[in-house]
């Protein structure tokens, strides 16, 4: 991977290394022969891959020459190469304290920031160039950052600047090759990489971050073919094969890298993740594959089956295509396992991630209850599968993400993310990006919430296009992007307007929708505090009156301390259950997801004999936190009462899948639901299962007798 200078491919590193050695040795000649021998030895050990030995030499050298910034930089470079950016950064900073103009220290810091897709990497590289205008690697780094931002013009300028200093600058050559290949053009730059494996790794990296995994894999293979000991390429090949579900070969490559001491976090964590696959169950269907952790497969499987069937039917029609290969969905209860899948990838990737036809996502149990809508995430990722499939992975990040966000609320208005205070603040501060530059907000965010803001903005842009030009226009745009055309051209041709004019119209529409919330946000915050104080003092009437007014300013706020909860509690304090039910109904409809509040609403509806509404309320909760035994028990009972025994069977099966304390009760209820469905043989089995747990359980005894005819066995 080009970002990380962690490859032991000495061919590619020879020039900077030897330049540094030469400089350092020259500096040391004045200082004495002993130190010169030591730095030479440190570099020699490093070259021979004796990293511990080299580390020891650098340590001694820095102790002997504490004022020498160059030694610290080289020591930092060693740490950086050996997967320890934290210590590397510390050494670079120490070097800069000794010499604020130490260009390689500044470059080292820029690389570390760039590795994390930090927004300040370009600025840091610029500082390195100011310190040493001949530092062509800084131009290369800026070229890479620009290309990651989908800014080929700047990438070309920076790569050319690097080549003007060093005509054989490998990364600059590779970036030129990557730009050609990403544009589906023959590249005259590619042959110039020759037998330098790192160059192919760089190109592969760009394929991967543009979701063109197959082509990335081919380039990693090429890197390995010319440099078999390029272990970083073996590792990346393994990781990307794993992403596409080709586990056997992935494991081989990852183990090869590991055994050869290439043990960065991605390699180690990917191997750990693959080891954990033995804890998973895989279920095959004609059009999809589901993989769950064994401990929660029984609960999640029925719900995922339903949603996968529904989403495939919907998207087949909507995108007017059928997927050629089954989609694999992997659901991870341990967020860290899921996070391994997204390591080294730009963007948020916090809930789900799509790799062509493989989706990895958090399980609802991997997140605190109420903070994650798994069905919304599933539909989001499935949209990527279709869009990547139609475009052959040639689609800008903003558009595929925006469309996926658009699909969440198209599936159901209460799905998807609500407008957060960070988004309102970004709108207030005019931080939304023009459509032509929005990709930057995903890849190299310049402020903390920018990735979230970019998802929101891209989603709203797709909503806006859908509303103004019709949903078909979004499909037309997908097909245009499939031709590998840039955003500005697609906007111009498909929407018949300049991108700048589109931005103006879109912002005006957004202002119409959210202007009130943006303008009133400061006052809203103040009033929420006042309502909290009134609630504490038990002033229910005032809470209700003031709360309803505040609700209108920023109705999307449903997180902790939301006004709906204050008002509902005040209603209940007054004994007005109808008022509480209406308020919580609004909370749920707008997307409130606190399981306790949603269950409270269902209970109020149940008590008011609004059984069907109560069932629908709980049904909504199965998309949010299905790992709740009480939810399934109540929904099962309501389904039976509502004459919907098929749903009752599903709910009681889910309950049994959770290994409830009351096994007898759960099996008995399932027996009742099955009996109501006319599935008497299965019902009898469940009655026996109930009585196995509690032989004297009278209701189960009665159902067993009923299902056994005259009672004779």
């Amino acid at each position, binding site marked *: 991977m080009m970002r990380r200078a962690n490859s032991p491919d000495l061919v590619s590193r020879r020039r900077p290394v030897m330049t540094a050695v030469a400089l350092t040795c020259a500096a040391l000649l004045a200082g004495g022969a002993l130190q010169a021998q030591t730095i030479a030895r440190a570099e020699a050990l490093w070259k021979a891959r004796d990293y511990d030995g080299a580390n020891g030499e650098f340590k001694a050298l820095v102790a002997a020459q504490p004022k020498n910034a160059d030694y610290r930089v080289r020591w930092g470079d060693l740490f950086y190469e050996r997967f320890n950016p934290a210590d590397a950064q510390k050494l670079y900073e120490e070097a800069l304290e000794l010499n604020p103009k130490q260009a390689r220290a500044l470059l080292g810091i820029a690389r570390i920031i760039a590795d994390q897709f930090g927004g300040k990497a370009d600025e840091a590289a610029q500082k390195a160039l100011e310190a040493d205008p001949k530092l062509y690697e800084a131009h290369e780094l800026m070229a890479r950052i620009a290309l990651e931002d989908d800014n080929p013009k700047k990438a070309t300028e920076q790569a050319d600047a690097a080549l003007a200093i060093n005509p054989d600058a490998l990364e600059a050559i590779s970036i030129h090759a990557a730009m050609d290949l990403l544009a589906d053009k023959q590249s005259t730059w590619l042959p110039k990489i020759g037998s330098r494996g790192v160059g192919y790794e760089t190109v592969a990296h760009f394929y991967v971050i543009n979701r063109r995994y197959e082509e990335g894999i081919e380039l990693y293979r090429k890197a390995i073919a010319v440099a078999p000991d390029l272990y970083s390429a073996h590792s990346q090949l393994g990781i990307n094969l794993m992403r596409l579900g080709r586990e056997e070969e992935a494991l081989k490559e990852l183990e090869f890298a590991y055994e050869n001491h290439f043990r960065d976090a991605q390699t180690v964590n990917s191997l750990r993740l693959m080891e954990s696959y033995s804890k998973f169950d895989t279920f095959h269907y004609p059009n999809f594959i589901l993989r769950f952790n064994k401990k929660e497969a029984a609960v999640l499987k029925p719900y995922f089956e339903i949603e996968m069937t529904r989403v495939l039917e919907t998207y087949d029609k909507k995108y007017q295509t059928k997927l050629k290969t089954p989609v694999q969905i992997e659901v991870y209860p341990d967020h860290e396992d899921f996070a391994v899948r997204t390591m080294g990838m730009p963007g948020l990737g916090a809930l789900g991630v799509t790799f062509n036809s493989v989706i990895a996502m958090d399980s609802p*149990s991997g*997140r*605190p*209850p109420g903070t994650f809508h798994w069905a919304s995430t599933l539909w989001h990722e499935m949209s990527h599968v279709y869009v990547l499939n139609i475009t052959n992975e040639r689609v800008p990040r903003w558009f595929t993400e925006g469309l996926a966000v658009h699909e969440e609320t198209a599936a159901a208005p209460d799905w998807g993310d609500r407008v957060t205070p960070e988004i309102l603040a970004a709108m207030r501060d005019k931080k939304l990006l023009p459509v032509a530059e929005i990709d930057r907000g995903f890849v190299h965010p310049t402020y903390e919430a920018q990735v979230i803001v970019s998802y929101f903005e891209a989603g709203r842009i797709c909503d806006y296009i859908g509303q103004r030009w019709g949903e078909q226009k979004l499909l037309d745009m997908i097909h245009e992007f499939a031709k590998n055309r840039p955003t500005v051209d697609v906007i111009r041709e498909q929407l018949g307007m300049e991108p700048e004019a589109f931005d103006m119209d879109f912002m005006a529409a957004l202002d119409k929708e959210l202007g009130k919330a943006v303008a009133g946000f400061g006052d809203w915050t103040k009033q929420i505090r006042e309502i909290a104080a009134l609630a504490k003092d038990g002033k229910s009437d005032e809470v209700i009156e003031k709360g309803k007014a505040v609700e209108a300013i920023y109705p999307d706020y449903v997180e902790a301390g939301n006004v709906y909860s204050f008002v509902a509690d005040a209603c209940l304090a007054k004994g007005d259950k109808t008022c509480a039910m209406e308020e919580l109904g609004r909370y749920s409809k707008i997307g409130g997801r606190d399981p306790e509040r949603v269950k409270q609403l269902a209970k109020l509806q149940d008590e008011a004999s609004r059984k069907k509404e109560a069932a629908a309320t709980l049904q909504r909760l199965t998309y949010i936190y299905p*790992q709740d035994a009480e939810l399934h028990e109540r929904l099962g009972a309501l389904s039976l009462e509502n004459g919907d025994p098929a749903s009752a069977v599903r709910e009681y099966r889910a309950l049994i899948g959770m290994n*409830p*304390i*009351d*096994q*007898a*009760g759960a099996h008995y209820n399932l027996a009742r639901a099955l009996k109501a469905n006319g599935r008497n043989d299965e019902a009898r089995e469940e009655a*026996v299962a109930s*009585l*196995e*747990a*509690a*032989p*004297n*359980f*009278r209701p*189960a*005894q*009665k159902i*067993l*007798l009923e299902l*056994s005819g005259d*009672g*004779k*066995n």
Partner: protein
Amino acid sequence: MRCTKTLLPILLCAAALNAPAATYVLTVAGLGGEPDYEQRFTGLATETDKILRTGQTDRVVETLKGADATKAKMEAVLAKFAASARPADAFVLMMIGHGTYDGVEYKFNLPGPDVSAKELATLLNKIPAGRQLVVNMTSCSGGSVEALKKDNRVIVTATKSGTEKNATVFARYWVEALRDPAADVDKNETISALEAFNYAQKKTAEFYTEQKRIATEHPQIDEQQRASAFALLRFGSAAAVVTDPAKRALITKKEEIEGKIDELKYQKSLLAPDDYKKQLTALLLELSKLQDQIDK
């Protein structure tokens, strides 16, 4: 409530449940230290008191909370119980609150002087009740087990050792077990100490999993078999059925079948699944029919 897997202990167990004996219960909510804990502990003790005073009349219930939960008052109640309880009776002590453990000695935090596990053991040993249950739901409660151990005493603690020092949530779920029919897993309308423990233990574990927090308490029980025979709470018609002499023969037959079911379940892993299911279904049908006759 499940008694045991062999016939003889089942009969003994049934006898223990059937004996017309009293149960002496003391619930103590210790010092909260801050309003939130104070309110929580007192609330749990109040709720327990209310549950225990409902229905059954064979129970002597005392509850100490707030300023009343002192060492002196605890000693007084326990001395009163020691004077009136008989060997056929049962005794239950439930402790809610904070505890401390210095590596040697466990102490239950009370307004005024604390009471140590050793002091408690001395007080409890004076109570002649033949079956005893101590439910220590405080932080560090695991540190009290050694001092409280006695042959006829089941000990439940919220933590596995004295070193688990964080405030516990186990008490919340123990009290919930007393009012949730789901805790009665064998559906015999009696919640045993083991059923309440299993319920509270599972809910406690789920609490930490859901909250994405590292579990800082690991509940323990020392005598599962005896705990399964320790009836904490009866509801419904359970008591009435077992004391009806007219149906003694049927009840004896029923107990025999229950014994056979337990034996069969014990051998489950040794039998072919179909064979096991067939035998189990036959026994369950027989038991169901018999219960029909008893009900008539």
